[in-house]
């Protein structure tokens, strides 16, 4: 998100504007036969990127009508779950994978899915995104010039050649040309923001999804300094259907996560990333296995009343979605942990959700987020778009058996520090939209929006655990918060940044001083409802904002 930050999702099979799709009770007709490839970590433009771009475009085409082609990434890849999910498909869906050892073998297997190829220009970065757009529309694979002999060997013919077409042109000019030529034929309920890494390394791992779904690819800037790119960006976003998706991620070289998420939120759209999230074209075609039903590990009934004792209550929450976090790291289950699930996975990757639920320990508890049915900043969602989005979130939370909603608005923050608060108007909207939750969580870094209405508290994070911070200092920080908040009970909500190791957190908790009790987040919220020792607070209009948002058009 910040930053490393990062939020995720999987893929989407139905139009976003459609009502929340109920997962089928039985598995879809799964392809029992599929093929897989093992990727390495070389995504350099001068090295492994061209072949990977070819393969993910081929994957998008091969998976158009049925799930045939799956890519396994090394455990060090940002998305750790491709290996475990590969095993899950075999075990739970009976998929029998045949490994394809080379791009040559992949083309031999799937060449019939492609009508030809489009050549991108390695000297013009944006041409790769234009090539992906063409690939989706024309059923083409994407190649750089040195790979032309390989695809021609398999009988593929040239469809388009971008070499030299955009030489010397700026990105706003290039994407304007692409807009004029292709936008009319692209999907209008979703768009692919293929940004992320820039320069010597690029990582378009999500391109299979965009090719399959015929999306418009771009990495236009949301940075107000880039006026021409921003203008075209706004035009594109304004033409996405209400409630639609921006897949992918912002360009690390042009703008910030905060800027882009603010921008799409002003159009009532939602982000589903990252740019390197793999295999959506495959994952979206599986539903839950027969008889599977989400059952969360609730520790307290929705209507229960608890009474807080004079203690320090701690709860840990891991956001950034579970696939990118610490789920597969040692120690999970040793502490009560809440895991923020991007709710749209019910549509995009049911198997992944089932995998997580299947492997949950009694200490793992799932909560909804992030801010709604997708990643967005609620302070900037147009009021008229808010109810529709949150109605959808309510349905998805019910399906996922989730009782807690996590909210994040970093539009005014500076990375993961600074102003992460909600306006009173935003808080009012959440209380109106979610009458059935047991409470709300706010923030990413620390924040100070707090409230209690009827039995539903809204608590912000008092602490964010940076994975790089020495554990002794983390313990000292937490002890200082406990000392500063001297009334008992004290409710200390902690955000665990992705990649923190749970075992190290166990050691931290042993160093805490005072009458502490670590509780699951649902219990935490119920206790917080019983004795309001925290202040009521919203975003203060006088507080500095690192970024104030975009003017209305």
């Amino acid at each position, binding site marked *: 998100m910040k930053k490393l930050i990062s939020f995720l999702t999987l893929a989407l099979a139905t139009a976003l504007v459609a009502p929340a799709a109920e997962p089928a009770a039985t598995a879809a007709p799964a392809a029992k036969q599929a093929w897989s490839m093992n990727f390495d970590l070389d995504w350099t433009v001068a090295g492994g990127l061209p072949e990977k771009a070819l393969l993910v475009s081929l994957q998008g085409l091969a998976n158009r009508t049925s799930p045939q082609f799956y890519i396994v990434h090394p455990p060090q890849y940002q998305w750790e779950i491709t290996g475990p999910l590969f095993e899950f498909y075999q075990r739970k869906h009976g998929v029998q994978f045949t490994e394809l050892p080379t791009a040559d073998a992949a083309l031999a297997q799937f060449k019939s899915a492609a009508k030809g190829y489009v050549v991108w220009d390695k000297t013009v970065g944006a041409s790769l995104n234009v090539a992906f757009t063409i690939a989706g529309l024309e059923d083409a694979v994407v190649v750089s010039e040195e790979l032309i002999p390989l695809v021609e060997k398999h009988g593929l013919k040239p469809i388009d050649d971008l070499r030299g077409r955009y030489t010397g042109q700026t990105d706003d000019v290039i994407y304007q040309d692409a807009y004029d030529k292709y936008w009319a034929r692209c999907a209008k309920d979703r768009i692919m923001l293929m940004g992320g890494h820039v320069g010597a390394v690029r990582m378009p791992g999500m391109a299979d999804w965009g090719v399959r779904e015929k999306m418009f690819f771009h990495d236009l800037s949301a940075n107000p300094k880039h006026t021409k790119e921003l203008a075209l960006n706004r035009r594109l976003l304004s033409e996405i259907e209400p409630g639609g998706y921006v897949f992918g991620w912002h360009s690390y070289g042009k703008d910030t996560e905060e800027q882009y998420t603010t921008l799409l939120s002003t159009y009532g759209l939602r982000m589903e990333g990252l740019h390197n999230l793999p295999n959506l074209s495959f994952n979206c075609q599986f539903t839950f296995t027969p008889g599977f039903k989400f059952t969360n590990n609730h520790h307290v009934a929705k209507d229960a009343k608890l009474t807080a004792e004079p203690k320090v209550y701690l709860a840990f929450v891991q956001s950034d979605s579970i696939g990118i976090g610490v789920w597969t790291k040692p120690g999970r289950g040793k502490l009560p942990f809440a895991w923020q699930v991007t709710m749209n996975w019910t549509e995009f990757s049911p198997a992944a959700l089932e995998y997580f639920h299947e492997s949950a320990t009694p200490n793992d508890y799932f909560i909804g987020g992030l801010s709604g049915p997708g990643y967005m900043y609620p302070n900037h969602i147009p009021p008229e778009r808010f109810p529709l989005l949150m109605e959808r979130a309510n349905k998805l939370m019910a399906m996922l058996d989730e009782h807690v909603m996590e909210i994040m608005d970093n539009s005014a923050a500076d990375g993961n*520090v*600074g102003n992460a608060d909600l306006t009173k108007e935003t808080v009012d909207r959440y209380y109106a939209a979610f009458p059935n939750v047991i409470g709300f969580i706010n923030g990413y870094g620390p924040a*100070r929006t707090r409230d209690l209405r009827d039995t539903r508290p809204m608590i912000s994070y008092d602490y964010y655990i*940076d994975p790089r911070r020495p554990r002794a*200092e983390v313990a000292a920080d937490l002890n200082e*918060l406990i000392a500063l908040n001297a009334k008992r009970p004290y409710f200390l909500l902690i955000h665990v940044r992705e990649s923190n190791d749970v075992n190290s957190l166990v050691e931290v908790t042993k160093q805490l001083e005072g009458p502490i009790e670590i509780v699951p987040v649902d219990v935490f919220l119920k206790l917080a409802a019983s004795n309001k020792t925290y202040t009521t607070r919203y975003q203060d209009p006088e507080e500095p904002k690192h970024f104030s948002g975009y003017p209305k058009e």
Partner: protein
Amino acid sequence: MIAGGLLALGLATAAMAANPALAGRWRYEPTLSTALDGWHKMDLVIALEGTKVAVTHDMLWIRSKVVATNTYDTARAVEAKDYFRVEQRHMAVYPAKGGVTTATAAWIDGDRVLRTEAFTPVEVSQGNVTMRITSEYRVSETGDTLTVIELHSTRNRPLVYVFKKVPAEAAKN
């Protein structure tokens, strides 16, 4: 009479800016220091004038720069509306809105060390509370290293920040 004489001597000592080696620009050395949280870089720029000691914090977080000066006076307590505290910014501890910090300073240990003490109001989730921050500024014998030891009334583990002197020419850039 004696007391008056001591007071006069004390003021004279303070007026001499007891340890001139403290003055200048100092750069945070992360490998020797307590980790900063929510900041990437920190310079201290210390100016001495008579009994006044101005400590400017030149902070960087990603691309955001914050420059803030706390001015102490070794002759008297001072009050500041915008006292700067080196926050661990991943903690929900904020300067209290409208809060006034009271701070004192003194040269100690044979005038080699500057000690400051600030009572600063902070906002936490339960409301506003006062944090006492006691700091010692110690310059090495060779004059190239500054160690700042910061103790909070609310933290048992001191924060130790080590700085290296930035040569005068480099400090101009």
